[in-house]
């Protein structure tokens, strides 16, 4: 028998400092960078009169429009996302399920100019769908205006919301699902008992995320908005900084944007935390839901098919437009092909580290939420969202002022681009990992504490097995967002060698429209490959789990 006092085997990284320190540093630097960015502008100029905000008709209109379109887009994206997630959880054997999931993941990371081109090809004045609808019905559809803005925002965000909600719905503990299945609960009660508790945990976070994305939307709002009446604050900030060099006004508007989005996050984070973090003892298996048959099944399948088309048609438009260019490049070879290959390698050299960085930071910041108290937890939620709320142009200016003296070499510049790309992906990655990482059920946590599974060991034995799939998906998002990024890399300036999105813009600038369409298609293909590749390990494991389920059912039958 071991002698007392007994000391548990010291687990690596089990000191509380390790759980909180790095996350605190990351969260702190995010906030510091933001403040530095805005402060740098203020330092260069004086803050204009606050009263300008409500006295200037133009500005107050801009703020009102920004809020209005963001609310509308958020409500619709969340609503549609929820219906899709419910349909997907009810119909686990829906034939195109995997394909649909991949496209859902893809839509968020599509570069705006590519996505808009696809959307216009389908819903534009001469788009496929518009032509069909106007030929057969008397409906007159005009993409340009609030319609188009909301449509595009739903196209980007409903799949994101659906994807995260699906993950939450699938994590409902198996015993609870079995009970629901046995009781034959349907409709309102099934929602109350099974779905709502799962959804409630993540909904505030997604709402805040989507709201911020729509609030800060820029090129989409302008391209599809129809005219200057559709202007977001972000446009006004860009205008002040780039064309008027009115730093004070830019800072003022940035502060307004930060205040509104920050308030939404704080509100949502409070609600999200007060919601009961249902202990999930998970590895849920396919338990048939009482409401997955008959008319409901038919309705679900129709809904999923329509949604698939909604996402797939614009991609098809990109495919048709880009194929001739891409085929030419592939067949003719030579310089264009070499350029594309080089740009691809270069893109991955930035995007993969960016993905790793964003996932690591998200894990460290989330450790704050699990190990630290309520305040640290709130800090972590808001800090990760900050990169979304600050206009990139402001963040870029701030970072530039901070890092400029250290930027000796272009390689460091590219490393910085990877770093910022990683930070930009942080809000998404955090949302994806939050559920799986923070949802350790009490019995498991107690067992682990007693056995001394702390620090690295806890991660190794308890978190890692449950996190593999979410981590892979998070990596895909982090990498994908960086792969499609044009803004950050353009902000910092690059030597002549372009990444794929930069190549795309260079081709556009030189009227190489066919080539550009080909590059756009190639970019979409790359993004799709990234998501497919990162989903592979999870896919295989899922297959194996089905086997276990079969065994388990047997075992339960024996001992029932």
């Amino acid at each position, binding site marked *: *028998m071991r002698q007392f006092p*007994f000391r548990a*085997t010291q687990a690596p990284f089990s000191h509380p400092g390790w759980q909180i320190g790095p996350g605190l540093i990351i969260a702190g630097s995010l906030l510091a960078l933001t403040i530095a960015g805005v402060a740098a502008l203020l330092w260069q100029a004086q803050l204009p009169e606050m009263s300008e905000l409500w006295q200037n008709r133009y500005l107050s209109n801009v703020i009102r429009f920004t809020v209005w379109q963001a609310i509308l887009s958020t409500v619709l994206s969340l609503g549609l996302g929820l219906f899709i997630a419910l349909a997907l959880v009810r119909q686990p054997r829906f034939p195109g399920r995997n394909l649909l999931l991949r496209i859902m993941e893809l839509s968020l990371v599509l570069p705006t100019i590519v996505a808009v081109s696809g959307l216009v090809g389908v819903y534009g004045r001469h788009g496929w769908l518009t032509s069909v609808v106007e030929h057969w019905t008397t409906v007159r559809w005009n993409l340009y205006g609030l319609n188009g803005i909301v449509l595009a925002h739903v196209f980007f965000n409903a799949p994101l919301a659906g994807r995260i909600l699906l993950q939450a719905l699938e994590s409902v503990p198996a015993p609870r699902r079995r009970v629901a299945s046995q009781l034959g609960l349907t409709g309102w009660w099934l929602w109350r008992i099974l779905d709502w508790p799962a959804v409630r945990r993540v909904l505030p976070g997604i709402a805040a995320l989507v709201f911020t994305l729509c609030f800060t939307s820029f090129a989409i709002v302008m391209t599809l908005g129809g005219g200057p009446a559709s202007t977001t604050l972000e446009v006004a900030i860009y205008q002040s900084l780039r064309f008027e060099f009115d730093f004070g006004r830019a800072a003022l508007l940035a502060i307004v944007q930060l205040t509104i989005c920050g308030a939404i996050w704080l509100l949502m984070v409070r609600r999200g935390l007060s919601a009961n973090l249902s202990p999930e003892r998970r590895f849920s298996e396919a338990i048939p839901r009482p409401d997955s048959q008959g008319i409901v099944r038919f309705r679900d399948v129709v809904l999923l098919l329509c949604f698939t088309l909604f996402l797939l048609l614009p991609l098809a438009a990109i495919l048709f437009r880009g194929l001739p260019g891409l085929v030419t490049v592939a067949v003719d070879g030579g310089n264009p092909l070499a350029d594309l290959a080089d740009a691809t390698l270069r893109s991955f050299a930035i995007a993969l580290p960016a993905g790793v960085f964003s996932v690591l930071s998200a894990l460290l910041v989330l450790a704050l939420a699990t190990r630290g108290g309520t305040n640290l937890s709130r800090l972590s939620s808001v800090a990760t969202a900050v990169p979304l709320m600050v206009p990139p142009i402001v963040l870029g200016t701030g970072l530039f002022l901070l890092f400029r003296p250290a930027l000796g070499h272009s390689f460091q510049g590219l490393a910085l681009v990877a770093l910022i790309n990683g930070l930009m992906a942080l809000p998404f990655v955090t949302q994806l990992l939050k559920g799986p990482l923070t949802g350790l059920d009490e019995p498991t946590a107690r*067992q682990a504490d*007693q*056995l*001394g599974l702390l620090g690295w*060991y806890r991660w190794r034995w308890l978190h890692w097995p449950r996190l593999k799939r979410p981590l892979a998906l998070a990596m895909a998002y982090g990498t994908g967002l960086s792969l499609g990024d044009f803004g950050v890399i353009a902000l910092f300036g690059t030597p002549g060698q372009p990444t794929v999105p930069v190549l795309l813009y260079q081709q556009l600038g030189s009227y190489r429209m066919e080539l550009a369409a080909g590059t756009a298609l190639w970019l979409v293909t790359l993004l799709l490959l990234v998501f497919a590749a990162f989903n592979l390990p999870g896919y295989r494991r899922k297959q194996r789990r089905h086997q276990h389920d079969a065994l388990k059912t047997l075992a339960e039958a024996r*001992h029932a």
Partner: protein
Amino acid sequence: MLDVKDLTFRYPDTETTWRFTFHVDHGQCIAINGPSGSGKSTLLNLLAGFLTPESGTIRWEGDLLNNLAPWNRPVTSLFQEHNLFEHLDVQTNIGLGMHPGLRLSTEQKQTIVKGLASVGMAGFESRMPGDLSGGQRQRVALLRALLRDQPILLLDEPLTGLDAEARTQLRSLLLRHKAAGKVLVLASHDAEDRKILADKQLNL
């Protein structure tokens, strides 16, 4: 000797304050009796360090345990269920009790194989907990407790819900623990369990 003196605890937002005083010697089993909600589990969680008492002391061999983290206490808990990590196989579940990083010597690995055989589960090393019956799962959990080799065993309804055969098997395993000089703290509804295992009673 495990010595608990004037240990008090109150759940937030409730009126009732629990108060416990008792002591147990090596090789003895104390049965905690009382209806549901009388604080049996609360006491076990206090001893394990999952809950923090308001006042009073827990001493083992004269040393104060109150301020030790769960992983530094000389105790092992066994609950009615949820004792195993569902996503890890049997040998990993047991091995983690011996070293949280699973750095095991060849001898230790053999101990696991032999231990499984001794509880009638030879060849179960790579099975997942989900594939086992309730009795088998408790045997694995108990084996882990045995191999983890802490002097105090906290038992929270460990035999409830098992069939007669499994009960008999587990009882004899627990008696072996006791004979090896361990202290057992048992919360159980079952009169027979108490009769066979317990040396003294604590009525709540």
